[in-house]
């Protein structure tokens, strides 16, 4: 009996990880790219919310959710571009400006999103990977959204590109030592501008997932700080895109602890378990702060470490 319970909980955790992790993953990959180039963009929470709103609105008007996803990415890229442009001006602090961008992003989303709280827009469909199992719980847990697979592909591509392409090396070099890059005639500002815009694009897509798949509607309480926690996640993942994916899945699973326990009738401490991702964030930050390895992997130009 209790074995069945454990199984249910584990399957629910797996389902939760696969479902909840996607926005974490996209924001973390975006932040990873930006930080690799030597900038911190704390505005990705705002980008996420604006992306969610844009995706929902465009999907509603055009009838095509994928067009919504693309639009969300573009909105994110626009916010990223603003951040990238302003931060290259002298004496602008990227962290402080990122916080301003976060407020701007959410503000814009709430302002333009008022009209879309009621109507229902076409959603994205999931692919079922659980067809082989006769267990309906597994089948429903393995409802995987294509964006999750896209995210994993993006992570693989980034990981490969950082080592094997000119752009990857330029991004790493700009993040590691701006002086070296400048001595080579590389425009560090341009590299960072592009990296921040591309990072914003990814974060915007993460937002599209929120409004078009899970939870799957547009309202002002849609994001619960995923955009901010993704920044912690990047540190935990030590600026490696593949570890970002793993960390996002871990965060997704912890986020599913509360609902999973509730589904088997354990309601005690529901709110406590719902706070699990935040507690995990704290524990991770404390744990990784003193780690020597993290110290070695951190891009040398980041203003949080300088």
């Amino acid at each position, binding site marked *: 009996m209790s074995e069945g319970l454990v199984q249910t909980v584990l399957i629910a955790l797996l389902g939760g990880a696969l479902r909840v992790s996607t926005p974490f993953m996209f924001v973390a990959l975006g932040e990873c790219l930006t930080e690799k180039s030597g900038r911190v963009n704390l505005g990705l929470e705002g980008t996420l919310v604006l992306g969610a709103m844009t995706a929902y609105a465009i999907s509603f008007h055009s009838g095509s959710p994928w067009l919504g996803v693309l639009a969300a990415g573009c909105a994110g890229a626009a916010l990223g571009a603003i951040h990238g442009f302003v931060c290259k001006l002298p004496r602008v602090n990227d962290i402080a400006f990122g916080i301003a961008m976060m407020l701007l992003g959410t503000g814009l989303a709430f302002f333009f999103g008022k009209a879309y709280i009621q109507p229902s827009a076409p959603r994205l469909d999931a692919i079922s990977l659980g067809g082989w199992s006769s267990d309906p719980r597994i089948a429903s847990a393995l409802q995987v959204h294509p964006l999750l697979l896209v995210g994993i592909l993006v992570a693989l591509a980034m990981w490969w590109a950082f080592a*094997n392409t*000119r752009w990857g*090396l330029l991004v790493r070099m700009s993040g*590691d030592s701006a002086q*070296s890059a400048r001595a080579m005639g590389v425009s560090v500002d341009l590299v960072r501008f592009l990296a921040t815009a591309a990072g914003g694009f990814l974060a915007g897509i993460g937002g599209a997932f929120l409004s078009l798949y899970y939870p799957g509607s547009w309202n002002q309480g849609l994001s619960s700080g995923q955009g901010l926690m993704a920044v912690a996640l990047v540190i935990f993942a030590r600026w490696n895109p593949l570890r970002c994916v793993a960390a996002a899945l871990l965060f997704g699973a912890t986020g599913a602890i509360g609902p999973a326990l509730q589904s088997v009738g354990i309601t005690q401490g529901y709110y406590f378990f719902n706070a699990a991702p935040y507690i995990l964030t704290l524990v991770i930050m404390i744990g990784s702060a003193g780690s020597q390895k993290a*110290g070695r992997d951190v891009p040398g130009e980041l203003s949080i470490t300088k």
Partner: protein
Amino acid sequence: MQASAPGIVQGGRAIGLETVGFSKQFGALRALDDVTLKVEPGSFHALLGENGAGKSTLVKCIMGFYRADSGDLLLDGREEKIRNPREARALGLGMVYQHFTLAPALTGAENLVISRADAPAIIDWAKETKRLDAFLDRMPFRAPLHVPVSQLSAGEKQKLEILKLLYLDQRFLILDEPTSVLTPQEADEILSLLRGMTDRGEITILMITHKFREVTAFADSLTVLRRGARVGGGKVGEITTEAMARMMIGDTPIRERAARQPTPPRAPLLELAAVYAVGPEGKNVLDGVDLKVRGGEIVGLAGVSGNGQSQLVEAMSGQIAIDDGCVLIRNQRFEPTREAFHRLKIFGLPEEPLKNAAAARMSVAENMAFRNFERPPNASLGWWLRPSAIRARARDLIGRYHVKTQSPDAPIGDLSGGNVQRAILARELSSDVDVLIVANPCFGLDFASVAEIRAQIMDQRNRGAAVLLISEDLDEILELSDQVAVMSEGRVVYVAPIAQTDRATIGMHMAGHD
């Protein structure tokens, strides 16, 4: 587009360069004043001058790093405008800066490939590795290419910097004090290779240096700058080193070498007892260091760079943790706190002082007050700072130690390399000193400053301070030390009184032979 195989330098392609009337103003300071410099193609040209003379500024203007206010640049007799380092590179000009410019987290191979103007969008590492190996095979010295640059020693980094220029097929090489981080053997090896290449007409070299020995041994012509202006130059064989020295400093008297006064035997002031420290790679960077320094004595710690010397300094100053063993001062266990440094009168000069002992964006005056800003007269009640007192004291130190700065309020990062060194030494030597720990104190200093600083160190010894002198310059160790110790692989492997040892014995222990 594929460049003709990089690194194959054909004969007769060296570039000649001429600056005509270069001037450059930094605020109120005239850093370059109508400088005319002529470097023949295929020559090995030395650029000399005291600290702050404007040598780095001149070559940075040539490279397009700074824009000269006026003046023309001729390459092979043709006038060229160079607006940024990329344009300089396209014209075949390459430079090794006074600080390293390799990206530390990238491997050597990554640094080399990405520095190419035609770096492919997608890098085929199998092919590139083969090409790099073929390139290295033609080079008389090599450097590890497949570990992150941050893990290389200073000498290896310097070799890699030069290899990078050759890999990029650059034919006019500017080297800003390239040998200051190298052992004399490494320096000779690299310079003689480069000399060979200039003799074959493959490259031209413009080298900034403070070492007359390198000028006479490797250069064939030279130019001397003083206070931003050209004061002389010519063929190397025709100018004596005395004449060069006079051109560099004018009539300023050089401080006499301080005499070693006999000091009575005293008790050890500084003692290291089996000090262990584990590095980031999990290896013991300090592997049981034992060492005693008595009052009134200079212990010179020799060793090839990267054998734990910098970690030893960091451990004593509290920058890295000591995992086992202890540091004793006057037979008491020493914890590196600010209070203890002050009470026990411990002072020091770490290597790379701009990074390790200064805050680059703070002013010279503030940097000079780091040791005592919270004490009278710099502050009242321990917290109310009095900038006027801090500035007055700085002005006094600047005068006494001949620090060349526009004002006490200039950021210390704007000073020339040698003057940062002097500013920090002024701070550390100006009060009562019991224990002095100095690492490569004369790194990158002109000969007059070297004489000055060595005399200061000797003064402290004569006054009874215990001095630990860590140096990669064996001549400095032999000149100053009472006792010589050698560090190798994180341990002190040899200690002897100066009278009972010689260069060859020390060199053997440095190389790891017993």
